[in-house]
């Protein structure tokens, strides 16, 4: 108190007043923070919050899904020929600006025992006619890996969005509300799969939606429809007649990207090599 009095330049009375004002101010700030948080959360309802949390823990269950569907995307790496038709179709469907990619194809060239070259010229839009310049030797292995949004059950992008513009819908689609997005790009940084970008014209976050608008109309995602070899597959995991349900129920090696991140992706890969990151 003595130090405060000395530094404040007021007498003991003045110090006590300042102390009280500070306490009052802190009380006000704390009350405001608690009250504000409650007012924001109340519309969710405790039951919904609990059911949502339970769903996340289960890795994207259907308890909060009125359609009762569990959509998954499966990429069969062994069928991808690197033609880039999927990327062109996606570009056509969404009029994606040049230099930005909602989906892309990566080429992995393995030389010798463990030398890995990865490239994706123009996102694979024009295919892969030539071997990469950095790879003069004879390739021991060469394969293509299509990449897109992983539609995580526990998405980092949703967690970091400060305005609720990125969200996971009841059907399990992670979408962007362009009217709410303020373009802070936290989600772009948070996505472990680099699936997001800031749209250069709209200045809001953009990414693959698994063609939610097409699925909503009973169509397949455009990249699935365009793929000439059936390397991309999409469907309801719980539908016994769906190809994805059949594939993922077989005792084959199914992998997700970066499982250690804990995002619980809904994008699965068949035939994924250990070199893929």
């Amino acid at each position, binding site marked *: 108190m003595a130090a405060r009095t000395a530094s404040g330049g007021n007498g003991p009375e003045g110090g006590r007043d300042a102390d009280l004002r500070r306490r009052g101010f802190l009380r006000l700030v704390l*009350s405001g923070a608690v*009250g*504000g948080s409650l007012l924001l959360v109340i519309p*969710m309802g405790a039951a*919904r919050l609990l059911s949502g949390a339970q769903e996340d823990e289960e890795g994207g269950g259907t308890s909060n899904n009125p359609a009762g569907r569990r959509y998954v995307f499966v990429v069969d790496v062994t069928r991808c020929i690197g033609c880039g038709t999927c990327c062109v*179709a996606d570009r056509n469907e969404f009029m994606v600006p040049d230099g930005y990619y909602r989906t892309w194809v990566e080429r992995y060239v393995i030389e010798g025992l463990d030398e890995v070259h990865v490239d994706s010229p123009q996102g694979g839009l024009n295919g892969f006619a030539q071997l990469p310049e950095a790879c003069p030797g004879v390739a021991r292995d060469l*394969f293509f890996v299509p990449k897109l949004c992983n539609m995580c059950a526990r998405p980092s992008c949703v967690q970091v969005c400060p305005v609720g513009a990125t*969200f996971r819908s009841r059907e399990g689609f992670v979408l962007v509300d362009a009217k709410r997005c303020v373009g802070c790009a936290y989600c772009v940084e948070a996505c472990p799969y680099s699936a997001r970008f800031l749209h250069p014209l709209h200045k809001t976050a953009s990414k693959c939606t698994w063609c939610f608008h097409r699925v909503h109309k009973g169509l397949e995602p455009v990249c699935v429809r*365009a793929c*000439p070899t059936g390397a991309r597959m999409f469907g309801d995991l719980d539908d016994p007649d769906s190809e994805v349900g059949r594939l993922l129920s077989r005792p084959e090696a199914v992998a997700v990207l970066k499982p250690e991140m804990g995002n619980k992706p809904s994008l699965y890969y068949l035939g994924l090599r250990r070199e893929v990151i």
Partner: protein
Amino acid sequence: MSILGLILLGIVARLVLLPEGYGSEGLYRPGAVQEEAVRAVRVQENDSCRPCHPLIGKLHEQGEHKALLCENCHAVGGDHFLNDMVIGGMSSPCGEALDGSCMRCHRQMDVAVDPEIIKLIKGPDHLDKLRVRSDHDCDQCHHVHAPLKWVREARAMVGVSDGG
């Protein structure tokens, strides 16, 4: 007074900051889902092409390319036909562009692909093997909508089986 003021402030802040319906489905604006759902489909299904292009459509659905979208080679349907009206042309690759379009999928690389999935070729080798001039375009032997149609017809004419 201060508590009441805070509650009022919170209510006003909620009204101003939170969009309509926020929280009814989750921590987001429900209208955003509907707005995404009604986005226009630009890349159409082949069924939307067939009413105006029945002959090519029939040929296409009987050929080896039947699983392909028309728009894989012909640009975007949404820029061509809208509300029962033709609103723009459609590109059809020919010459070198056509060869590039074919080779985008059929080019043989070092990648190991099951031949049952797709037929892969090396351009010059393929032509040399079949004793075809090296400047021939793909569509001089292959009907692009039914790639083996002419090949099969030619084989039938000279009495060679499919495997020959």
